[in-house]
Every structure is written in structure tokens, then in C-alpha cells.
């Protein structure tokens, strides 16, 4: 599982949409860094969610499952099922900047796959949900 460990950037610098427009994260999608002051409710979103929101959800220990807009409907159904299995942990939404496939993020962790691989996503969620909540909550359970 490829991962990119990140240190938190200045969390105050992107608290508004106008400030967020100038933020450059060092991964796509971002896994930490500046974010808005409120975190979104979890669950399925039919439209893209701003990075500033998703990153705040990650900071609370949640998982973001983001899919490219060319993801087939049956793949989205699988993601929907995952979201239902983890309603307190997962936010899933389309991510237009992703050229293809699926990206799943936790705070400081990123995994990408070309297709929807439910087993792999489930392992990611199980290992990393609640791992971070404004600070690491326990010893690492994966790389």
C-alpha cells in the first residue's frame, strides 16, 4: 500500500474558500494540511466535496473514498455499500481532479487503485479509521 506521510501545514491558512483557492497540497487528493474550520457530515456525496472539508474530516480520523468521474455505476454502488458499512467513518464523493480510478485517504495516508477493489478499501478503512484525531490515537497499524 503506497503511503505518503505528511506533516500538518498551517491549518489556519485556508479557513475560507477564497484562501483555499491558493493552497497547494502535496498530494492528490490531499491527506493533511490547511482546511476549513468545520468538518462535513459523513456519508455519500453526489457532488465533489472541497479539499478544505475533506482534510478536516481526515483530521477527525475519518476516511475519504474519492472516485474519478468516469467510475462506472456498479463501482459507485460498491463504494456506497462500503459507506453504509462504515457510516461513522467514511465520506465518499466524486473527485474530478482524479484522472482515473479510486483514491482513498486517511490523515497522512493515501492509496490509489485503478478499479474499485472492495477488499483492499476495506483493509484501508479498518486499519486507519480513528487512527488520528487531532493527533495520533495509537501505535501504527500499517506502514
Amino acid at each position: 500500500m503506497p503511503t505518503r506521510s505528511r506533516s500538518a501545514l498551517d491549518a489556519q491558512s485556508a479557513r475560507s474558500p477564497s484562501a483555499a483557492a491558493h493552497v497547494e497540497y502535496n498530494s492528490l487528493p490531499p491527506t493533511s494540511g490547511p482546511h476549513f474550520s468545520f468538518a462535513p457530515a459523513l456519508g455519500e456525496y453526489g457532488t465533489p466535496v472541497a479539499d478544505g472539508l475533506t482534510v478536516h474530516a481526515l483530521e477527525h480520523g475519518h476516511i475519504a473514498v474519492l472516485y474519478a468521474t468516469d467510475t462506472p455505476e456498479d463501482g459507485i454502488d460498491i463504494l456506497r455499500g462500503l459507506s453504509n458499512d462504515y457510516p461513522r467513518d467514511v465520506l465518499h464523493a466524486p473527485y474530478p481532479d482524479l484522472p482515473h480510478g479510486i483514491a482513498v485517504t486517511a490523515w497522512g495516508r493515501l492509496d490509489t487503485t485503478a478499479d474499485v477493489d472492495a477488499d483492499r478499501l476495506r483493509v484501508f478503512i479498518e486499519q486507519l479509521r480513528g487512527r488520528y484525531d487531532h493527533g495520533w490515537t495509537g501505535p501504527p497499524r500499517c506502514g
Partner: protein
Amino acid sequence: MTAPQQLAGPVAALVASRDGVDCTLGRPDLGIYVAVPEPGVVFVETLQSGGSTAEAAARAGAVAGAPVDGADFLAGLTAVGLLDPVVADQRAAAGSGGGPKLRWIEGVSPQVARRLFGRAGWTVYAMAASFCAVALLVIDELRPTYEDGWFLGDPVISLLILTPIIVVLAGLHEAWHWLAGRAVGVPAAFRISHRGPFLVFETDLTQIVALPRRDRYGPFLAGTALDCTVLATALGLRLLDQQALLDLSPTLYRLLGAVVLLQVTGIVFQAAVFLRGDGYAVLANALRCHNLYRASWLTLRARLLRVSEADRAELAAISAHDRKVASWFCACYLVGMLGVAWFMLTFVVPYLISMTGWLWANLASGSPSSAVFWESLAVAVFVLLTVVGPPLLGWRERRLRRRGVLM
């Protein structure tokens, strides 16, 4: 000897209730209620049925087992204001400045109201409350978090959509109190008015003291019963969606999460017996207290802090029974206050901090030519009024009461 003619109106306006050894005489139009011994109620009832003062005194004396001085008793009633002239406009007398009665809802007959509060109705409410308790205790995924309030990607639009929902749910809560009062025959009033900029729903259930205590629980619990029913519906729909037995739209699913958060918050505050909500009314009724709230607060202050002479005098003036209950209830009061503080820190404070951060950032960095700037400004004013307004209005009302302008 007959009762003076000028007292005919005020005597007719008196309501009397018996509940075991507790008897009350009241003037709902003036908001005055006084506990009296049973012979006092017999005296008034005799006058109301057309008897003379002498006949009323004789019947009251028979109940008391000792002679009753009718003129002296009437003088006592006059002294406490129970025989003041009848005021045509009750709202003027109450000094509430409240809004007009809602004629369409006031027209609901007791028979119709009783359908909502019969055996079947209360069974539904009890099942809803049980389902809520079990679901929230057992199913972790159904418990709300403060994040559920932001069910859309934009917190301002989330708040704009939630605000009318909050108003409707608050109105339904009060209307259910009123309907339950109607069902047991209490001539309650339901009004929509405002205090400063705040929309206020008022249910006047003061005449409930005319009922035996056991009959008062329904009207006291009705608002929370409806809250539980709404909460059970929202939880049930979310649960069915989670179990793939229902296919809600994602936005509706998250909106229901926000409704769960609102209802749980509301029920917690209503159940908090130390906050003078519905829970307090139920408890004070069960413990046969009249002023447990003040008695508990003053007792707690006397034990933990220094109290003024005025506070000491106020506590001494409260009935011995209320003071006796308050001597142990003040500990529950303290624990409850700590519980509410935890709830505020877990749900309300994070919400306010996040919302304030968002608004401040938009106002500080946004351009006045952008929509988000003006949305944020409008919500900032709204949030400020919501947080600062009630304490300010409370302070103003206390000042007006001290000056005798407000009853």
C-alpha cells in the same frame, strides 16, 4: 349575608383544584395561584354555586371541623389579588406582550385532541421513546455528532435550511403540549409571538393546576413524546438506509442526521430536570413541589457559596416541603449541571467554534463583492443574536420585573 356584588365576577373567575391534601385557588387571567386548605376550596365553590358568604362559611366550617370567618377569608383572598377585577384582555394582564392566539389551532376540539393522547397514542409515543433509547445505546452508527449539523458542503446553507426546520420542530413541540392540555380539558392557549428578534412559541398551561396531579403528566410529557416520535422516525429511516432496505438520497440521509442531532439536543435539554424544562415539571409534580427550582438553586448556593440576606429570606419563604426535597435534590442539580456542561462542550461549543472560525475567515478574507461574504455576515449576525440575545433579553426582563413594569 351574601358576597358583595362587585366580587361576583372575580369569584366566578376563580379556579379551584383538589389533589389529596393539596388544594389550590387560582386566577388564570392574572396568573395568580395560591395553595389553600380544603375548606377554602369548599368556601369558594359554594359562592360559585350561588350560595351566600354565610352558607359558604358554614360548609367550609363543616369540613374544617371549626368555625370559619367568611369575611376574613374573603379579605385574605383580596389581599393576595385573587379577587382583583376581571381583566378582559388576558395578555395585557399577563404583561407578556405576546402575539395573537392561533384561532385555527385553538379551534381543535378536545375530542379530536384526545385521539392523539389516548391509550393508542401513548403506546406509540412509548414505543418511539423505547426505540430511540435502544437504537442510540446499541447502534453506535446512529449516534449523532456535532458534524451532522453540516450536512451540506456549505455551513451557511446548512444553517439556512436547518433554521426553519428548528422553528417547525419547536412549534410542534409546544403545540403538542397544548393539544395534550386540550385533551384533558385544560383551557390552554397557544401563541406565536416574539421576544426581541426571536420567534417564540408559547403554550399557556397555567390552568393545569386545576387538575389532579396524576392528570398533569400527559400535558407535561406531550412535547417530548412528539420529539421522540420525530427522532424515532429519523433514526428508523437512517437505519433502514444503512441496512440497504431503503434507498434515501444522500442529502436526505445526511439531513436526517442533522434532525437526529437537533432532536437529541432538544430532548436532553427538556429532560434536564435542573433546567426548568419539561423534565423539571414532571419531577416537581411527582414530588408535589411548587418551587423546587429556586429552592434547589438557593440551597446549592448556600452550601457552596456565600448567599445574600435576600437569598436567605427567599429560601426561608419557600415551603418547608420544597426545602426538604431541595436538601437532597440540589446534589442531583449539581450533577445535572455538570452533565449539561459536558454536552455543551461536546456538541455546542465545537459547533460554535467551527462556525465562528468559518465566518471570521470569510469576513476577513472575502471580498464584499462576493456572495459568501454577505452570507457570512448575515449568519454572523444571526449567530450573535442567538448566543447573546437570550441572556440580554433575560437581563432586560429581570430589570423590568424589579421595576414592576413586567409581571
